[in-house]
């Protein structure tokens, strides 16, 4: 089975600190990591390979430094990695990102299963998985928390919903975007680390994947970010310390005043 995992390198948003003087984010020195949800996608791909045989390839679009993320994937046991890197890809919104990734996957000769994370923790849109599926004209199941059954033609998977989950049957090839409930990602093995050390990903530029320049990067992106700002902080309330019964009485009084109870 041919399995492709789309992975994105992201700044570690859990490591973001606030500068107390200016109330702005301190982003210098924030490490880059593989998008956490993509780790689950990699793990699931490796498990599918263990069960069904085949090959796992990761693909990423981004600047040259993404090589580090691809090496990390290799150290976990991924067979091969492809980096779509060209200054012309920069500034892509989800439309152009989905287009570019789909052209890369076409160039690879397609796949039986394509896995994405549920969402990236920087852009946070969750739109790229469905976007790639649409460009490749394949079915998709989002928010997958379990692959119950799979062979080379079809799969039965669990899609998480607001109320619980749905069991969905799909034909393959298909796109699955995965949530963290699906598995527990493994740590890199020693052998993997050795392989990663000397590994260099195949790098494809726009011309290599026959990408139409009208559809890539900033030029191909219908959306523009016009403003970025830090969210307004909620104005502080009352902090009650000391006697608990007094504190409780004050709070209940306040709730009555606000007509909440």
């Amino acid at each position, binding site marked *: 089975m041919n399995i492709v995992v789309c992975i994105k390198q992201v700044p570690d948003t859990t490591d973001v600190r606030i500068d107390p003087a200016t109330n702005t984010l301190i982003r210098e020195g924030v490490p880059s990591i593989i998008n956490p949800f993509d780790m689950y996608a990699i793990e699931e791909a490796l498990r599918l390979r263990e069960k069904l045989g085949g090959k796992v390839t990761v693909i990423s679009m981004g600047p040259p430094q993404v090589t580090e993320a691809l090496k990390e994937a290799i150290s976990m046991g991924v067979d091969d990695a492809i980096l779509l890197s060209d200054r012309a890809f920069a500034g892509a919104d989800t439309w152009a990102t989905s287009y570019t990734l789909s052209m890369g996957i076409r160039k690879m000769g397609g796949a039986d299963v394509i896995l994405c994370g549920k969402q990236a923790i920087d852009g946070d849109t*969750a739109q790229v998985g469905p976007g790639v599926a649409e460009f490749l004209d394949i079915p998709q199941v*989002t928010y997958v928390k379990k692959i119950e059954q799979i062979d080379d033609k079809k799969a039965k998977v669990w899609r998480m919903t607001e109320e619980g989950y749905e069991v969905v049957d799909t034909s393959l090839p298909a796109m699955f975007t995965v949530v*963290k409930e699906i598995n527990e990602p493994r740590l890199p093995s020693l052998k993997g680390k050795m392989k990663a050390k000397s590994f260099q990903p195949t790098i494809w530029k726009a011309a290599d994947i026959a990408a139409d320049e009208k559809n890539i990067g900033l030029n191909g992106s219908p959306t523009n970010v016009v403003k970025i700002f830090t969210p307004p902080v909620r104005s502080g309330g009352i902090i009650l310390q000391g006697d608990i019964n007094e504190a409780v009485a004050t709070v209940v009084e306040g709730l009555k005043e606000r007509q909440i109870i």
Partner: protein
Amino acid sequence: MSDIEIIQDKCVGCGACLSSCPYGAITLQDNLAVIDDDKCTLCGACVSSCGFDAILIRKDQVEKADISDFKGVWVFAEQKNGQVQSISYELMGEGRKLADALGVELAAVIMGHKIGDACQDLIWRGADKVYAVDDPALEHFCDEPYARIMADLIKEYKPEIVLGGASTIGRALIPRVAIKARTGLTADCTSLAIDEEKRILLQTRPAFGGNIMATIICPNHRPQMATVRHKVMKEAECDKTRQGQIIKKSFDKATLASRTSVAQVVEEATNMIKLTEADIIVSGGRGMKAPENFTLVENLARAVGGAVGASRAAVDAGWLPYSHQVGQTGKTVAPKLYIACGISGAIQHLVGMQSSDCIIAINKDPEAPIFKVASYGIVGDVFEVLPALTKKLQETCGK
């Protein structure tokens, strides 16, 4: 090719842009900002941070789609068992405002099977027109036929704005529609407004796990599409005197075909009040220490008729199922009252609950970030405060 440039004559080397770059691509060299192309993703975050207009992103002249004949605001209405979902009422409320600001019609699109009452309901909630597709094949949400139909309808009727819910359905469906329609889609918006001069939609959304807000536009393509987060917009009122038109559409077999099918629907947490619909939520975090201690949280919830939520730490520990998780990767809630018990207030938790009307935080650490968003903060041990608060509320509410 598009690119980014620091205009050296304008840059004063103040360094304000450095912290705005999420990818650490900007450094100061000889008192000038320098951008490292190997790191820069052209995301645009730095441009508005410079008070001296020194950062310029050049976008090549792009082909403009002909956008002049796109008119009207559309809402994709979700239904389950023929019942319109509350997120769609919120979209109707917001859609009505946008349509009025633009002086155009508001239409709803609904798909399903036996949805007659839902169509009428959408008119009462503000729709001038309802495009309805009723077919047994559409009873359950299915990505492919839903996306094809939505894209076909857009092509035929050319709305200028299309809104969908940022729900599991909306987040699966709307991106596929946007690709088909060759247009932009802004995810998970928390605020929408019209720039009346340019007649464009200003779409504001949190990104980077709620650390920043971004305003996004789609200037040259139509429709302008957005998914909207649940519980941030106000539901449209139901006015049974409203009139509107229901337009029934039907589609051929090929359009209705799907390579996926739902074999089974499983509902979890059925005996609990639905988290996103609850007026009062009591949530517990790692500070509750053990699963059995959640009875304290449940007792408090019962005393006030509320639902039970949890931080991710509590869910990861297996104390409560995922369906109870509040936050970036859980549910966004905005109840009248949110009580956080033994929750530190990590940004990923805060983005899911900070638009609650009133927040009570109980934590033994006076420095816990949760107190920054609290209307009332009680510094104390949950094992003492919760029983006391429950008792007091039982007395008060029981009266």
